C-alpha cells in the first residue's frame, strides 16, 4: 500500500507564473478551490471552499517564490474546518523547476497518510520502498485474482 501520491507534469509557463497561480489567493481560485478565505500565507491558515458544501482548512507550511509551496490539510473531502495541525493531516508540496525559459516541471507530492509527520513517513517509506513496491505488486495480483 503506497503512502504517498506523486505526480509530475510539464507546463509551458515560467516558474514565476506557475508559482503565483498556486500561491496567490486571487489566482489559485481560477483552477483549484472556488474560493479562499482567511489568511493565505506562510504560517497561517486559510479556508478553501469547493462548491456549496465542501470546506477545507489549509495550513500554509512554506511559500518560497518561485520554486516551492506547501500546505497541510485533511484529504478526502472530509470537510475539516478546524486547525489541521491538531489532527492527522497530509502535506501537499509543489516543486517548480524552470527547465528552460518558459517551460517548467511541476512535481506534486502528498504524504503523511499514516498520520505521521511527513518527514518520518518519507524516510520510513524510503527504507521500506522495496517492501512497499513488492507488496503493492503482490496485492495487485491478489486483487485481480479476487475480481475474477
Amino acid at each position, binding site marked *: 500500500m503506497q503512502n504517498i501520491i506523486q505526480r509530475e507534469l510539464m507546463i509551458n509557463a515560467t516558474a514565476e507564473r506557475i508559482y503565483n*497561480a498556486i500561491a496567490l489567493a486571487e489566482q489559485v481560485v481560477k483552477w483549484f478551490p472556488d474560493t479562499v478565505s482567511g489568511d493565505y500565507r506562510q504560517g497561517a491558515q486559510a479556508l478553501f471552499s469547493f462548491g456549496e458544501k465542501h470546506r477545507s482548512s489549509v495550513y500554509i507550511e512554506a511559500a518560497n517564490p518561485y520554486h516551492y509551496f506547501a500546505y497541510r490539510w485533511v484529504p478526502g473531502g472530509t470537510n475539516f474546518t478546524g486547525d489541521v495541525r491538531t489532527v492527522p493531516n497530509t502535506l501537499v508540496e509543489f516543486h517548480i523547476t524552470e527547465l528552460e525559459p518558459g517551460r517548467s516541471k511541476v512535481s506534486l507530492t502528498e504524504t503523511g497518510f499514516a498520520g505521521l509527520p511527513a518527514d518520518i513517513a518519507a524516510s520510513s517509506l524510503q527504507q521500506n520502498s522495496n517492501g512497499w513496491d513488492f507488496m503493492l505488486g503482490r496485492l495487485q495480483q491478489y486483487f485481480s*485474482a479476487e475480481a475474477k
Partner: protein
Amino acid sequence: MSQAAVVQLFKALGDPVRLQIVQRLSNGVPLCMGELSKDLGISRQGARKQIQALVTANVVQLHPVGREVKVQLDATALTQGRDFIAALEAQWDQRLQALKQFTEQ
C-alpha cells in the same frame, strides 16, 4: 472510507514488521500463527502483538482451525485504502490539468 479508518490502515502498514507479515500473506494463502511469526527478528509474543494490531486495523482475520490459529489477509480494508488513494490521485490529475490550462493561457 472514513478518515480515521484510512489513518488506521496506513498506520498499520507503516511498520516494517507488520509490512513483512502482510507480504507473507499477500498471495492470499492463510498461514498459521507460528509459521507467520518465524524469522521476523522479534519474539513470538511480539509477533502476536503485531498480528493483533493488523486485526484491529481490519488488515487480517484470525480463524481458529483445531488447535491452531490461521491468519488470513482481509482484502476489504486494503481495497478501500487503495481506492481512497486512487480517488485522490484522479483528483490531483484533474487539478494539475486545470493548473496547466490556466498558466499556459
